[in-house]
Protein backbone atom coordinates (compact mmCIF):
# COMPACT_ATOMS: atom_id res chain seq x y z
CA UNK A 1 0.00 0.00 0.00
CA UNK A 2 1.61 3.23 -1.14
CA UNK A 3 -0.15 6.39 -0.16
CA UNK A 4 0.33 9.72 -1.81
CA UNK A 5 -1.33 12.45 0.19
CA UNK A 6 -0.02 15.20 -2.07
CA UNK A 7 -3.06 14.56 -4.27
CA UNK A 8 -5.20 16.28 -1.66
CA UNK A 9 -2.98 19.37 -1.68
CA UNK A 10 -2.87 19.43 -5.50
CA UNK A 11 -6.64 19.63 -5.62
CA UNK A 12 -6.98 22.03 -2.74
CA UNK A 13 -8.61 24.75 -4.82
CA UNK A 14 -11.35 22.47 -6.09
CA UNK A 15 -11.91 21.10 -2.59
CA UNK A 16 -12.11 24.53 -1.01
CA UNK A 17 -14.57 25.72 -3.67
CA UNK A 18 -16.63 22.55 -3.16
CA UNK A 19 -16.65 23.05 0.60
CA UNK A 20 -17.90 26.57 -0.05
CA UNK A 21 -20.76 25.14 -2.13
CA UNK A 22 -21.64 22.72 0.66
CA UNK A 23 -21.82 25.54 3.19
CA UNK A 24 -23.72 27.77 0.77
CA UNK A 25 -26.26 24.99 0.11
CA UNK A 26 -26.80 24.54 3.84
CA UNK A 27 -27.33 28.24 4.45
CA UNK A 28 -29.55 28.78 1.40
CA UNK A 29 -31.70 25.75 2.23
CA UNK A 30 -32.24 26.91 5.79
CA UNK A 31 -32.95 30.45 4.63
CA UNK A 32 -35.77 29.05 2.49
CA UNK A 33 -36.94 26.32 4.84
CA UNK A 34 -37.37 28.38 8.01
CA UNK A 35 -39.91 30.92 6.68
CA UNK A 36 -41.59 28.28 4.49
CA UNK A 37 -41.73 25.84 7.39
CA UNK A 38 -43.29 28.48 9.62
CA UNK A 39 -45.84 29.21 6.91
CA UNK A 40 -46.73 25.54 6.42
CA UNK A 41 -47.04 25.09 10.19
CA UNK A 42 -49.36 28.10 10.40
CA UNK A 43 -51.44 26.77 7.49
CA UNK A 44 -51.63 23.40 9.19
CA UNK A 45 -52.85 24.89 12.43
CA UNK A 46 -55.04 27.83 11.49
CA UNK A 47 -56.03 27.68 7.80
CA UNK A 48 -59.25 26.66 6.09
CA UNK A 49 -59.81 22.89 6.49
CA UNK A 50 -58.92 21.74 2.92
CA UNK A 51 -55.71 23.78 3.02
CA UNK A 52 -54.94 22.27 6.40
CA UNK A 53 -55.28 18.77 4.96
CA UNK A 54 -53.05 19.70 2.05
CA UNK A 55 -50.36 21.08 4.35
CA UNK A 56 -50.54 17.96 6.52
CA UNK A 57 -50.27 15.71 3.46
CA UNK A 58 -47.20 17.61 2.25
CA UNK A 59 -45.47 17.36 5.62
CA UNK A 60 -46.25 13.67 6.09
CA UNK A 61 -45.21 12.81 2.53
CA UNK A 62 -41.82 14.46 2.64
CA UNK A 63 -41.01 13.29 6.14
CA UNK A 64 -41.58 9.73 4.98
CA UNK A 65 -39.42 9.77 1.85
CA UNK A 66 -35.68 9.15 1.60
CA UNK A 67 -34.00 12.41 0.62
CA UNK A 68 -31.98 10.75 -2.13
CA UNK A 69 -35.25 9.78 -3.85
CA UNK A 70 -36.52 13.35 -3.58
CA UNK A 71 -33.26 14.54 -5.15
CA UNK A 72 -33.63 12.17 -8.13
CA UNK A 73 -37.31 13.01 -8.43
CA UNK A 74 -36.56 16.74 -8.47
CA UNK A 75 -33.80 16.21 -11.03
CA UNK A 76 -36.01 14.37 -13.53
CA UNK A 77 -39.50 15.62 -12.78
CA UNK A 78 -39.10 19.31 -11.94
CA UNK A 79 -37.84 20.28 -15.43
CA UNK A 80 -40.79 18.47 -17.01
CA UNK A 81 -43.32 20.05 -14.68
CA UNK A 82 -41.99 23.57 -14.67
CA UNK A 83 -40.57 23.62 -18.20
CA UNK A 84 -37.45 25.28 -16.79
CA UNK A 85 -33.94 24.07 -17.42
CA UNK A 86 -32.79 24.20 -13.80
CA UNK A 87 -29.12 23.85 -12.98
CA UNK A 88 -28.13 20.89 -10.77
CA UNK A 89 -27.41 23.35 -7.95
CA UNK A 90 -30.90 24.87 -8.15
CA UNK A 91 -32.46 21.40 -8.38
CA UNK A 92 -30.49 20.19 -5.37
CA UNK A 93 -31.48 23.29 -3.46
CA UNK A 94 -35.14 22.73 -4.34
CA UNK A 95 -35.02 19.09 -3.18
CA UNK A 96 -33.28 19.98 0.08
CA UNK A 97 -35.68 22.86 0.71
CA UNK A 98 -38.75 20.67 0.08
CA UNK A 99 -37.42 18.14 2.55
CA UNK A 100 -36.27 20.49 5.30
CA UNK A 101 -39.39 22.66 5.04
CA UNK A 102 -41.48 19.61 5.95
CA UNK A 103 -39.30 18.90 8.98
CA UNK A 104 -39.29 22.54 10.06
CA UNK A 105 -43.07 22.74 9.69
CA UNK A 106 -43.41 19.83 12.10
CA UNK A 107 -40.94 21.46 14.48
CA UNK A 108 -42.79 24.78 14.42
CA UNK A 109 -46.14 23.07 14.85
CA UNK A 110 -44.88 21.31 17.97
CA UNK A 111 -43.42 24.59 19.20
CA UNK A 112 -46.63 26.55 18.64
CA UNK A 113 -48.68 23.80 20.28
CA UNK A 114 -46.36 23.75 23.28
CA UNK A 115 -47.44 27.28 24.33
CA UNK A 116 -50.39 26.95 26.64
CA UNK A 117 -53.81 27.91 25.26
CA UNK A 118 -54.37 30.24 28.16
CA UNK A 119 -51.86 32.65 26.69
CA UNK A 120 -53.85 33.16 23.48
CA UNK A 121 -57.01 33.52 25.51
CA UNK A 122 -55.34 36.06 27.79
CA UNK A 123 -54.02 38.02 24.82
CA UNK A 124 -57.45 38.03 23.21
CA UNK A 125 -59.03 39.12 26.48
CA UNK A 126 -56.65 42.08 26.38
CA UNK A 127 -58.14 43.02 23.03
CA UNK A 128 -55.52 41.63 20.65
CA UNK A 129 -56.66 40.01 17.43
CA UNK A 130 -55.77 36.37 16.79
CA UNK A 131 -53.01 37.38 14.39
CA UNK A 132 -51.61 39.88 16.87
CA UNK A 133 -51.67 37.32 19.67
CA UNK A 134 -49.90 34.87 17.44
CA UNK A 135 -47.28 37.34 16.26
CA UNK A 136 -46.54 39.09 19.52
CA UNK A 137 -47.17 36.45 22.16
CA UNK A 138 -47.00 32.94 20.77
CA UNK A 139 -44.39 32.99 17.99
CA UNK A 140 -41.62 34.72 20.01
CA UNK A 141 -41.90 32.09 22.74
CA UNK A 142 -42.28 29.21 20.32
CA UNK A 143 -39.15 30.29 18.42
CA UNK A 144 -37.09 30.02 21.60
CA UNK A 145 -38.40 26.54 22.22
CA UNK A 146 -37.77 25.26 18.72
CA UNK A 147 -34.25 26.67 18.47
CA UNK A 148 -32.57 23.46 19.76
CA UNK A 149 -34.53 21.35 17.26
CA UNK A 150 -33.74 23.73 14.42
CA UNK A 151 -30.09 23.49 15.40
CA UNK A 152 -30.04 19.71 15.10
CA UNK A 153 -31.97 19.94 11.82
CA UNK A 154 -29.20 22.27 10.68
CA UNK A 155 -26.53 19.67 11.36
CA UNK A 156 -28.56 16.95 9.63
CA UNK A 157 -29.02 19.28 6.68
CA UNK A 158 -25.31 20.01 6.54
CA UNK A 159 -24.68 16.27 6.23
CA UNK A 160 -27.57 15.70 3.85
CA UNK A 161 -26.19 18.19 1.35
CA UNK A 162 -23.78 15.37 0.43
CA UNK A 163 -26.73 13.54 -1.17
CA UNK A 164 -27.13 16.07 -3.97
CA UNK A 165 -23.79 14.75 -5.27
CA UNK A 166 -25.86 12.09 -7.09
CA UNK A 167 -27.13 14.74 -9.50
CA UNK A 168 -23.65 16.21 -10.05
CA UNK A 169 -23.91 19.30 -7.88
CA UNK A 170 -20.28 20.27 -7.41
CA UNK A 171 -20.30 20.16 -3.62
CA UNK A 172 -17.75 18.45 -1.41
CA UNK A 173 -18.81 14.81 -1.83
CA UNK A 174 -19.14 15.09 -5.59
CA UNK A 175 -15.83 16.86 -6.15
CA UNK A 176 -13.92 14.55 -3.83
CA UNK A 177 -15.31 11.52 -5.63
CA UNK A 178 -14.54 13.06 -9.02
CA UNK A 179 -10.92 13.60 -8.03
CA UNK A 180 -10.84 10.05 -6.71
CA UNK A 181 -12.06 8.75 -10.06
CA UNK A 182 -9.53 10.82 -12.04
CA UNK A 183 -6.47 10.12 -9.91
CA UNK A 184 -7.30 6.65 -8.50
CA UNK A 185 -6.11 7.89 -5.10
CA UNK A 186 -9.16 6.31 -3.48
CA UNK A 187 -8.12 6.09 0.15
CA UNK A 188 -6.52 9.54 0.20
CA UNK A 189 -9.44 11.39 -1.35
CA UNK A 190 -12.16 9.58 0.59
CA UNK A 191 -10.31 10.14 3.84
CA UNK A 192 -9.76 13.80 3.00
CA UNK A 193 -13.48 14.13 2.24
CA UNK A 194 -14.41 12.53 5.57
CA UNK A 195 -11.88 14.73 7.36
CA UNK A 196 -13.28 17.94 5.87
CA UNK A 197 -16.83 16.98 6.79
CA UNK A 198 -15.63 16.09 10.26
CA UNK A 199 -13.75 19.36 10.73
CA UNK A 200 -16.83 21.33 9.75
CA UNK A 201 -19.45 19.11 11.35
CA UNK A 202 -17.85 18.36 14.70
CA UNK A 203 -17.95 21.94 16.04
CA UNK A 204 -21.52 22.20 14.78
CA UNK A 205 -22.55 19.06 16.65
CA UNK A 206 -20.91 20.43 19.81
CA UNK A 207 -22.64 23.78 19.31
CA UNK A 208 -25.98 21.96 19.08
CA UNK A 209 -25.28 20.27 22.41
CA UNK A 210 -24.57 23.66 23.94
CA UNK A 211 -27.74 25.21 22.49
CA UNK A 212 -29.76 22.28 23.76
CA UNK A 213 -28.38 22.74 27.26
CA UNK A 214 -28.94 26.50 27.20
CA UNK A 215 -32.49 26.46 25.84
CA UNK A 216 -33.72 23.35 27.61
CA UNK A 217 -37.36 23.71 28.56
CA UNK A 218 -37.92 23.07 32.24
CA UNK A 219 -41.38 23.26 33.69
Amino acid sequence: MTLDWSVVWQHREALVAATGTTILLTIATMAIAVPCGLMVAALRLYAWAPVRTLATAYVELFRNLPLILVVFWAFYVLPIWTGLGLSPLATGLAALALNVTAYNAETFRAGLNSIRRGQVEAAMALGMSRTQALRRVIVPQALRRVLPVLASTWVSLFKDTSLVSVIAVTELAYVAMQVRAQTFRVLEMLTAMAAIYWLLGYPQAKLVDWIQRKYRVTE
Partner: protein
Amino acid sequence: MDFSVITDHWRFLASGVLVTLALSALSGVTSIAAGFVVALARMYGPRWLRPIVILYIDSMRAIPVLVVLVWTFFALPIVGGITMAPFWAALVGLTVHLAAYSAEIFRAGIESVRPGQTRAALALGMSRAQILRRIVLPQAVVRMLPAFGSFLSVTIKDTAIASVIAVPEFMRQSETVQGQTFQPIEVYTFAMVVYFLLLFPVTRGVDLVYRRVAHLGRS
Protein backbone atom coordinates in the same frame (compact mmCIF):
# COMPACT_ATOMS: atom_id res chain seq x y z
CA MET B 1 -48.23 8.63 -17.86
CA ASP B 2 -47.79 4.99 -18.61
CA PHE B 3 -47.41 2.83 -15.56
CA SER B 4 -46.94 -0.38 -17.56
CA VAL B 5 -43.23 0.18 -16.99
CA ILE B 6 -43.85 -0.80 -13.36
CA THR B 7 -45.81 -3.95 -14.17
CA ASP B 8 -43.22 -4.92 -16.79
CA HIS B 9 -40.42 -4.77 -14.24
CA TRP B 10 -42.30 -5.72 -11.10
CA ARG B 11 -40.16 -8.75 -10.32
CA PHE B 12 -36.97 -6.68 -10.52
CA LEU B 13 -38.46 -3.91 -8.38
CA ALA B 14 -39.90 -6.34 -5.84
CA SER B 15 -36.48 -7.92 -5.37
CA GLY B 16 -35.26 -4.41 -4.52
CA VAL B 17 -37.98 -3.96 -1.92
CA LEU B 18 -36.93 -7.26 -0.33
CA VAL B 19 -33.29 -6.15 -0.15
CA THR B 20 -34.39 -2.81 1.34
CA LEU B 21 -36.42 -4.64 3.99
CA ALA B 22 -33.60 -7.08 4.75
CA LEU B 23 -30.98 -4.34 4.98
CA SER B 24 -33.27 -2.20 7.17
CA ALA B 25 -34.10 -5.05 9.52
CA LEU B 26 -30.50 -6.25 9.82
CA SER B 27 -28.96 -2.81 10.27
CA GLY B 28 -31.75 -1.87 12.68
CA VAL B 29 -30.96 -4.87 14.87
CA THR B 30 -27.16 -4.55 14.69
CA SER B 31 -27.12 -0.80 15.31
CA ILE B 32 -29.52 -1.01 18.25
CA ALA B 33 -27.44 -3.82 19.79
CA ALA B 34 -24.16 -1.99 19.13
CA GLY B 35 -25.66 1.28 20.34
CA PHE B 36 -26.63 -0.33 23.64
CA VAL B 37 -23.05 -1.49 24.19
CA VAL B 38 -21.70 1.94 23.21
CA ALA B 39 -24.09 3.69 25.61
CA LEU B 40 -23.07 1.38 28.45
CA ALA B 41 -19.41 2.02 27.67
CA ARG B 42 -20.05 5.76 27.71
CA MET B 43 -21.97 5.74 30.98
CA TYR B 44 -20.44 2.94 33.02
CA GLY B 45 -17.24 2.04 31.15
CA PRO B 46 -13.70 2.57 32.41
CA ARG B 47 -12.65 6.20 32.59
CA TRP B 48 -10.09 5.97 29.76
CA LEU B 49 -12.71 4.54 27.39
CA ARG B 50 -15.26 7.32 27.79
CA PRO B 51 -13.52 10.11 25.82
CA ILE B 52 -12.94 7.64 22.97
CA VAL B 53 -16.62 6.67 22.92
CA ILE B 54 -17.71 10.31 23.02
CA LEU B 55 -15.32 11.13 20.16
CA TYR B 56 -16.80 8.26 18.14
CA ILE B 57 -20.40 9.34 18.78
CA ASP B 58 -19.79 12.99 17.98
CA SER B 59 -17.78 12.10 14.88
CA MET B 60 -20.66 10.06 13.52
CA ARG B 61 -22.96 13.00 14.17
CA ALA B 62 -20.59 15.14 12.09
CA ILE B 63 -19.93 12.90 9.06
CA PRO B 64 -22.63 12.21 6.43
CA VAL B 65 -23.78 8.60 6.14
CA LEU B 66 -22.94 8.74 2.42
CA VAL B 67 -19.30 9.39 3.31
CA VAL B 68 -19.27 6.53 5.82
CA LEU B 69 -20.78 4.14 3.26
CA VAL B 70 -18.44 5.16 0.46
CA TRP B 71 -15.45 4.94 2.77
CA THR B 72 -16.45 1.49 4.02
CA PHE B 73 -16.95 0.18 0.51
CA PHE B 74 -14.02 1.76 -1.34
CA ALA B 75 -11.38 2.67 1.24
CA LEU B 76 -11.68 -0.07 3.85
CA PRO B 77 -10.47 -2.77 1.41
CA ILE B 78 -7.31 -0.70 0.86
CA VAL B 79 -6.64 -0.11 4.57
CA GLY B 80 -7.74 -3.39 6.06
CA GLY B 81 -7.56 -5.71 3.08
CA ILE B 82 -11.18 -6.64 3.73
CA THR B 83 -13.28 -6.72 0.59
CA MET B 84 -16.99 -6.95 1.17
CA ALA B 85 -19.93 -7.32 -1.17
CA PRO B 86 -21.94 -4.07 -1.38
CA PHE B 87 -24.71 -5.43 0.84
CA TRP B 88 -22.34 -6.30 3.69
CA ALA B 89 -20.36 -3.10 3.29
CA ALA B 90 -23.64 -1.20 3.57
CA LEU B 91 -24.60 -3.17 6.68
CA VAL B 92 -21.25 -2.40 8.30
CA GLY B 93 -21.33 1.28 7.28
CA LEU B 94 -24.90 1.81 8.39
CA THR B 95 -24.25 0.05 11.69
CA VAL B 96 -21.15 2.11 12.43
CA HIS B 97 -23.09 5.28 11.67
CA LEU B 98 -26.44 4.49 13.29
CA ALA B 99 -25.04 2.85 16.43
CA ALA B 100 -23.90 6.31 17.53
CA TYR B 101 -27.46 7.59 17.27
CA SER B 102 -29.01 4.64 19.05
CA ALA B 103 -26.38 4.99 21.78
CA GLU B 104 -27.56 8.55 22.36
CA ILE B 105 -31.17 7.36 22.56
CA PHE B 106 -30.21 4.73 25.14
CA ARG B 107 -28.26 7.29 27.15
CA ALA B 108 -31.10 9.82 27.13
CA GLY B 109 -33.57 7.09 28.15
CA ILE B 110 -31.40 5.76 30.95
CA GLU B 111 -30.59 9.24 32.25
CA SER B 112 -34.28 10.14 32.27
CA VAL B 113 -34.85 7.70 35.14
CA ARG B 114 -34.37 9.75 38.31
CA PRO B 115 -31.10 9.05 40.16
CA GLY B 116 -33.08 8.69 43.39
CA GLN B 117 -34.33 5.35 42.15
CA THR B 118 -30.79 4.08 41.61
CA ARG B 119 -29.81 5.27 45.08
CA ALA B 120 -32.83 3.60 46.62
CA ALA B 121 -32.01 0.34 44.84
CA LEU B 122 -28.36 0.56 45.98
CA ALA B 123 -29.58 1.09 49.51
CA LEU B 124 -31.64 -2.07 49.18
CA GLY B 125 -28.45 -3.95 48.32
CA MET B 126 -28.90 -4.44 44.59
CA SER B 127 -25.84 -4.54 42.35
CA ARG B 128 -25.30 -2.02 39.50
CA ALA B 129 -26.20 -4.66 36.90
CA GLN B 130 -29.33 -5.65 38.78
CA ILE B 131 -30.44 -2.04 39.07
CA LEU B 132 -29.96 -1.48 35.36
CA ARG B 133 -31.85 -4.65 34.45
CA ARG B 134 -34.69 -4.54 36.95
CA ILE B 135 -35.24 -0.87 37.77
CA VAL B 136 -33.82 1.46 35.15
CA LEU B 137 -34.20 -0.34 31.81
CA PRO B 138 -37.86 -1.39 32.16
CA GLN B 139 -38.84 2.26 32.52
CA ALA B 140 -36.24 3.65 30.13
CA VAL B 141 -37.17 1.26 27.30
CA VAL B 142 -40.76 2.49 27.29
CA ARG B 143 -39.64 6.11 27.25
CA MET B 144 -37.25 5.42 24.39
CA LEU B 145 -39.96 3.96 22.15
CA PRO B 146 -40.88 7.16 20.25
CA ALA B 147 -37.21 7.92 19.65
CA PHE B 148 -36.62 4.39 18.37
CA GLY B 149 -39.64 4.77 16.11
CA SER B 150 -38.04 7.68 14.32
CA PHE B 151 -34.71 5.86 14.49
CA LEU B 152 -36.23 2.96 12.57
CA SER B 153 -37.65 5.31 9.99
CA VAL B 154 -34.25 6.99 9.61
CA THR B 155 -32.68 3.54 9.19
CA ILE B 156 -35.04 2.65 6.33
CA LYS B 157 -34.43 6.01 4.69
CA ASP B 158 -30.66 5.62 5.04
CA THR B 159 -30.70 2.25 3.28
CA ALA B 160 -31.67 4.18 0.14
CA ILE B 161 -28.26 5.87 0.28
CA ALA B 162 -26.69 2.42 -0.06
CA SER B 163 -27.74 2.67 -3.72
CA VAL B 164 -24.62 4.80 -4.16
CA ILE B 165 -22.42 1.75 -3.50
CA ALA B 166 -24.57 -0.40 -5.79
CA VAL B 167 -26.51 -2.38 -3.22
CA PRO B 168 -29.42 -3.78 -5.28
CA GLU B 169 -32.03 -2.31 -2.95
CA PHE B 170 -35.21 -0.57 -4.07
CA MET B 171 -33.71 2.86 -4.81
CA ARG B 172 -30.98 1.31 -6.93
CA GLN B 173 -33.40 -0.94 -8.80
CA SER B 174 -35.65 2.05 -9.51
CA GLU B 175 -32.70 3.98 -10.93
CA THR B 176 -31.83 1.02 -13.13
CA VAL B 177 -35.37 0.70 -14.48
CA GLN B 178 -35.44 4.45 -15.08
CA GLY B 179 -32.13 4.26 -16.92
CA GLN B 180 -33.45 1.54 -19.22
CA THR B 181 -36.91 2.92 -19.90
CA PHE B 182 -36.41 6.70 -19.65
CA GLN B 183 -39.70 7.09 -17.80
CA PRO B 184 -38.56 8.95 -14.70
CA ILE B 185 -41.97 10.32 -13.74
CA GLU B 186 -43.63 6.91 -13.56
CA VAL B 187 -40.69 5.13 -11.93
CA TYR B 188 -39.91 7.75 -9.29
CA THR B 189 -43.56 8.40 -8.48
CA PHE B 190 -43.98 4.68 -7.92
CA ALA B 191 -40.83 4.64 -5.77
CA MET B 192 -42.26 7.49 -3.68
CA VAL B 193 -45.47 5.56 -3.11
CA VAL B 194 -43.57 2.43 -2.10
CA TYR B 195 -41.26 4.23 0.33
CA PHE B 196 -44.17 6.13 1.82
CA LEU B 197 -46.08 2.88 2.33
CA LEU B 198 -43.01 1.35 3.98
CA LEU B 199 -42.25 4.29 6.25
CA PHE B 200 -45.61 5.71 7.25
CA PRO B 201 -46.86 2.56 9.05
CA VAL B 202 -43.55 2.31 10.92
CA THR B 203 -43.80 5.80 12.41
CA ARG B 204 -47.54 5.51 13.03
CA GLY B 205 -47.28 1.96 14.40
CA VAL B 206 -44.63 2.90 16.94
CA ASP B 207 -46.73 5.90 18.02
CA LEU B 208 -49.75 3.63 18.55
CA VAL B 209 -47.76 1.09 20.57
CA TYR B 210 -46.25 3.90 22.63
CA ARG B 211 -49.65 5.35 23.47
CA ARG B 212 -50.68 1.95 24.81
CA VAL B 213 -47.62 1.42 26.99
CA ALA B 214 -46.65 5.01 27.90
CA HIS B 215 -48.06 4.62 31.43
CA LEU B 216 -45.51 1.86 32.12
CA GLY B 217 -42.68 4.36 31.72
CA ARG B 218 -44.01 6.88 34.23
CA SER B 219 -42.52 7.09 37.64
